[in-house]
């Protein structure tokens, strides 16, 4: 018996920069089984309705990473996203090209900004020339060492995380989740000799622009969890070099701040993060906020049992070897 079919209204983004002044959407309606992948629907449109519809795809099995697009606002591989749940939730399927990358035509984007960030971070093994790896035997790793990067090698570089990332969208200097996850993989690789350099460099090359919104982890079709790996990089960067940038000063300052009162002293945190000059620039805004919210200018009361917090800091933050390893 044939599977039940559903009406699938699809709106597809169309843009040919050589002819069109601006993009438009073409609307199609198909009858499909709910489990049909969106890629199959697009291929059917191209075969039966409009042979000019342009898209990238290859393996149809979520391995090649070619078919990442925006499906009803979410960045997804269209080969592994079925039509049924999308129609159920949204009444239709809107397909757009990936965000934050220039559109070449229709659903095809130029990937070079994505790869440019990747190359810049040199996510490949860098060994010490003075201690080359032996050529005649393997360099084994312990299971514990391998466990530290069990997720990152799964990455297929589809770009879904890059497309989903609001920091990438707002700031071209942010390397993006994929490049940072790949960097992480070599920072924790015991055979790599550039760990310290990598951690120092990344502090000034965008690490602290990550918003920890976890949209990348949500979008990743391979469960690489880039946001968690970026979090790990931040902790390791602070351990390697201390707080050298606004971002690391803020994280470290926040941690020190809580030790005084158990809750946040907002005004002090500004001092802990910003240079005196930058603070001067914040005075007009600070006064504007304080006029409505006078509490921003006062020290909050200490929590009860503050001594317990102090003990936790002594046990877990002051003790040697207890910080990021």
């Amino acid at each position, binding site marked *: 018996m044939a599977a039940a079919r559903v009406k699938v209204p699809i709106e597809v983004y169309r843009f040919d920069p050589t002819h069109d002044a601006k993009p438009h959407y073409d609307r199609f309606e198909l009858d499909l089984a709910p489990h049909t992948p969106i890629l199959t629907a697009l291929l059917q449109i191209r075969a039966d309705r409009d042979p000019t519809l342009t898209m990238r795809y290859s393996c149809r099995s979520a391995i090649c990473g070619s078919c990442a697009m925006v499906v009803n606002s979410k960045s997804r591989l269209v080969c592994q996203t079925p039509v049924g749940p999308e129609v159920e939730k949204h009444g239709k399927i809107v397909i757009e090209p990936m965000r934050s990358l220039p559109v070449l035509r229709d659903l095809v984007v130029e990937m070079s900004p994505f790869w440019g960030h990747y190359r810049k971070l040199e996510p490949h093994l860098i060994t010490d020339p003075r201690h080359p790896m032996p050529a005649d035997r393997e360099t084994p790793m312990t299971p514990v060492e391998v466990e530290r990067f069990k997720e990152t090698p799964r990455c297929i570089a589809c770009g879904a995380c890059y497309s989903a990332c609001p920091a990438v*969208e707002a*700031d071209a200097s942010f390397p993006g989740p994929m490049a940072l996850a790949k960097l992480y993989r070599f920072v924790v690789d015991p055979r790599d000799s550039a760990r310290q350099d990598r951690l120092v460099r990344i502090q000034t090359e965008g690490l602290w622009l990550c918003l920890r919104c976890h949209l990348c982890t949500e979008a990743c079709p391979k469960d690489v969890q880039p946001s968690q790996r970026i979090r790990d990089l931040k902790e390791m960067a602070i351990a390697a070099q201390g707080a050298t940038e606004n971002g690391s000063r803020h994280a470290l300052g926040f941690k020190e701040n809580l030790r005084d009162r158990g809750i946040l002293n907002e005004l002090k945190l500004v001092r802990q993060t910003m240079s005196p000059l930058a603070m001067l620039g914040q005075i007009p805004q600070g006064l504007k906020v304080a006029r409505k919210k006078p509490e921003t200018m*006062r020290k909050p009361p200490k929590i009860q049992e503050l001594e317990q917090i102090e003990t*936790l800091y002594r046990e877990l*933050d002051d003790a040697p070897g207890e910080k990021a390893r």
Partner: protein
Amino acid sequence: MKLAYYPGCVAQESGKELDLATRWVAKKIGLELVEFPNFSCCGSGFVDEANRTLNVAMNARNLAIAERAGLELLTVCSTCTGMLRLANVELASPEMRHRVDGALAKIGVAYQGTTRVRHLLEVLHEDVGVERLRAMVTRPLTGLKVGAFYGCHLLRPSKELLSESGEEPRSFEDLIAALGATPVLYRGRVMCCGFPILFVKEATANRIAATQIEDAKAHGADAMATPCPLCHTSLDSFQNKAEKAVGHDLHMPVFHLPQLVGLALGATPEELGLPRHLVATDSALRKIGQVAVPA
């Protein structure tokens, strides 16, 4: 219903209006808030980046306080919710559990791992329920189009936090409809507000906030509402900076979740702390026939 009230730092200081509105709504609908002056900050994601184990231990201590009292923990901030829930998740690792238990033992605290963390949004949606809430409405917010803005840490990472959805939640929109207002669906409702990098690279943070406000506006929102005081800071207290970043006015009133509920249940703007907002809420209040807020 009795809950351990965890207001978080911002609601006790610069976001005091959130605390005011929460207490007003709790009283109105019969939630008993038990206070614990020994709660510490959740670390706001920043302590997690500086020292993961310390962050888990501090939150395990908070969770243990509620556990000892036999209460679920009520949060009013998306980030507090995420951080406290993350501690429960991280404690599943035997290594983390061992180190945290060891440190907690030094302060005479043992955490069994049973505390449920509940955001006010979830308590309203799941426990009070949309129908009961609708029945309590005395001043329906008819005619007001509201864009919900969830705050990342209430939703993601969804696999760890077991949230309703990482990218397509609906509970807030359900509540907005129950209050008589019209929910506006827009992409930005699940996006980042820019707050985490407000002190790192302000111009980028401002642009991110502006993107979400403009998106809500483009979809017809008269106002936005958020269950997170950090998002509120970015969207309201720094909206003037977001305007500068995009070069034009935004004029978007932003409510805290319990303020919107309170308005529908008959509270005055003063009782909800609306005069404390940086962006005037008058334009939204006029739509529901409520007098303007004095500056």
